[in-house]
């Protein structure tokens, strides 16, 4: 187990290094000079030249690349060219905002998606099965921004049930400690604020959950259908066990592994930040943070931001792989 973990962690090095190199070259291949973009239309050529020199952009690309790698190894992710703040300091509030939303969305997606998939498999070819699977198809194909705007218009404006955007009630702001507002409000015992924070999570959470929910539902259904036809399920039913337990205990345990893979991938994807959802709901998350950095050609933020997101993504995959072993005793890592 330990040696497996060590091997997996070692494998991360070439993956992350390769990714860093690709991102590094890609952002330098797109036209646009960071100094010019950051200083704006008003900047004089001297100001641009001075900034280029200070940022080291006048050096050849390989020097820049090895400097960057060297800094990362020393734990320095660089400094934003635009705000002049270290990326390590700047990124956490954005990452926290995305993390909170992603966890909330994945919870919705897992609870609803898995149950819909299970019930669809249980009552295969029933009206519930058909409805759920049609909805899942619609869910996968629905443009998120459209769904988000529709939710805003319908639920927030016409019905007035939920706020249109943001993370908190701005007139009564949350005192940010961890930047995970759900946790912050609980620590401070502000349950009125916690309720506000949750209300702000619902619309973007549902918008973001739609696609994973649909994918999870379809995956669960097909995986369950396979398991439900196996002999041990027939045996369980034959010995008179309640159908509910047969499905949720015996069948689910064997059907869950492919579902878990999908959940892991989707979680990784959500943590990368959803630019559209974050833009529509004015959510100050990592997607918008990196997207803004691309617009400003803020190289250190783009590189390190993507590096962190990629790191999280591969770590989640690793955790998922380890979970297999916990769920299925037949899977052993050594």
């Amino acid at each position, binding site marked *: 187990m330990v040696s497996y973990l060590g091997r997996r962690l070692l494998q991360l090095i070439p993956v992350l290094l390769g990714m860093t190199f690709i991102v590094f070259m890609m952002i330098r291949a*797109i*036209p*646009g*000079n960071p100094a*010019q*973009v950051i*200083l*704006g*239309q*008003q*900047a*004089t*050529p*001297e*100001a*641009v*030249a*001075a*900034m280029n020199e*200070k940022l080291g952009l006048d050096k050849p690309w390989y020097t820049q690349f090895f400097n960057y790698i060297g800094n990362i190894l020393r734990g320095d992710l660089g400094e934003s060219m*635009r*705000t*002049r*703040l270290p990326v390590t300091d700047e990124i956490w*509030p*954005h990452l926290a905002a995305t993390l909170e939303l992603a966890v909330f969305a994945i919870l919705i997606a897992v609870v609803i998606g898995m149950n819909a998939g299970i*019930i669809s498999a249980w*009552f295969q070819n*029933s*009206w*519930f099965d058909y409805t759920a699977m049609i909805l899942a198809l619609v869910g996968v194909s629905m443009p998120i921004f459209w769904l988000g*705007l529709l939710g*805003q218009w319908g639920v*927030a*404006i016409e019905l*007035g*049930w*939920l706020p*249109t*955007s*943001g*993370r908190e*009630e*701005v*007139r009564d*702001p949350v005192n*940010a400690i961890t930047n995970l507002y759900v946790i912050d409000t609980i620590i401070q015992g502000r349950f009125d604020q916690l309720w*506000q924070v949750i*209300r702000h999570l*619902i619309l973007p959470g549902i918008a973001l959950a739609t696609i994973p929910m649909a994918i999870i539902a379809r995956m669960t259904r097909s995986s369950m259908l396979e398991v439900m036809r196996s002999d041990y399920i027939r045996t369980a039913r034959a010995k008179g066990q309640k159908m509910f337990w047969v499905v949720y205990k015996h069948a689910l345990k064997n059907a869950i592994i492919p579902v878990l893979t999908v959940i892991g991938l989707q979680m990784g994807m959500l943590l990368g930040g959803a630019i559209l959802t974050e*833009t*529509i*709901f*004015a959510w*100050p998350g990592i997607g*918008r*943070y990196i997207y*803004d950095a691309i*617009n400003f*050609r803020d190289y250190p933020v783009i590189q390190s931001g993507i590096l962190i997101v990629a790191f999280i993504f591969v770590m989640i995959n690793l955790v998922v792989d380890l979970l297999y072993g916990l769920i299925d005793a037949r899977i052993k890592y050594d």
Partner: protein
Amino acid sequence: MKRKKILSLAFVMLLGLSAILAACGSSGGEGGKSSSSKGNSILVFGRGSDSTSLDPSRVTEGETFKVTVNIYETLLNFGEEDTTVQPGLAEEWETSEDGLTYTFHLREGVKFHDDTDFNAEAVVKNFERWANGDADMFPYYSSMFGGFKGDAEHVIDSVTAEDEKTVVIKLKRPQAPFLKNIAMSMFAIASPTAFEKGDDQFERNPVGTGPFKFVDWKPNDTITIEKFDKYWQEGLPKLDKVVFKSVPDNSNRLNALIKGEIDLADGINPADGEKIESNEELQLVERPSMNVGYLGLTVTRPPFDKKEVRQALNYAINKEAIIDSFFEGRADIAKNPMPPSISGYNEDIEPYEYNPEKAKELLAKAGLADGFDMELWAMPVPRPYMPDGQKVAEVIQSNLADIGVNAKIVTYEWATYLDKASKGEADAFMLGWTGDNGDADNFLYVLLDEDNIGSNNYTYFKNDEMHDLFIKAQTEVDETIRNEYYKKAQEIIHDEAPWVPIAHSTPLLGAKKGLKGFKPHPTGSDILMHVEFE
């Protein structure tokens, strides 16, 4: 048996869902009420994006100034709704005959938010901080005052404290818009105690003399400022708190305004103006125009090296139709490269009318009777001076087709667009400009002079006579003579036609009905101390 179970399951789910929704609904009502009763003196100002820094001298970006004009003050102010020079932290000032010495008499009894006294020494320290910097640290200082200490082009010779309340600024050569430059929000006087602690610390903890002091910054989300109790103007500011909230999507910002989550929204689409006007709870606010949207013709790229071709394009484009359709009529047709509100505007220029026949004649004269192929660059982002680049480009394209010119619309991501256009890679490109200080130099010289080729003169247009006029005007202190220079320059620009000027638009804001005392400023940075709720 099976069916029964499904039904009951569905029923349970439905029940759960309705319970959740009911819970949301009930509290939604309470939430709405509480925010309007206790939120009376908190203004939430929704805008497109976050500030970069809260040290105005270090940036060139408007979203920063929107906040800092409320935290800091400048020696001189602009007028409430225009760019005339008014007293600020300096109550009075004198200019010497030769235009080289400016004496500022400072206001008494002014304190910084950290309790440091505001005096002549503080002003000197601020100027020294800028003059000892470099172009990377204080980009705007060098563009307005010609460089830094030791540079040959640096306009400011010395800044000295005559006594506690008098500051004397000596110039190396006269600079006509000097007082206007001093009034720009980036030259705000900060507490020396605060910036002497170090720049990086200071950028996130601004300390000025303004009506509001800094409270909190949640990146990409909100910046909160609150009333400064010891502000020198009695009874101001009227609000207790202002929250600047970034809501990047224009229609979402409008939604938040309708819902009452924000009280004031910047950057309203012209198409949404009517929606606000017809809403009884909202009011539409028009920002005085100080911008120009134009189609630039790169004069180094044939056939745009021929004056006749450039003039032909001016005749071919139906500006009125563009303004009616995409600015919803909330713009004036442009005939000069700067808006009429700016001193030195040439009223007498006869605009190019919409006349395709004449355009064809001019093309024939240039030897292009059969037309030609060109690329037309459409702006990828909405700006107040160009709300929908793509659609406007389509109108221009069809106008050009009428005179036999085959225009292909191309567009790039914004930073790429600017980069390529500034290198002269576009045949014809859409762009615009919002003025910084209301001076003619800030439009004409910056956008069309040969000195600015490679930076803001994207057309690569060059004219020796015009260049001489601009340079003379920069040091001419007599306003009448100076305006004559600019009027002459506009005649040259009109005849040479490096641009097709399109519109001077009126940027729109939306506000709650009960909001009073809000006066939008043409520079886009609004001082909010007079704002209150009814």
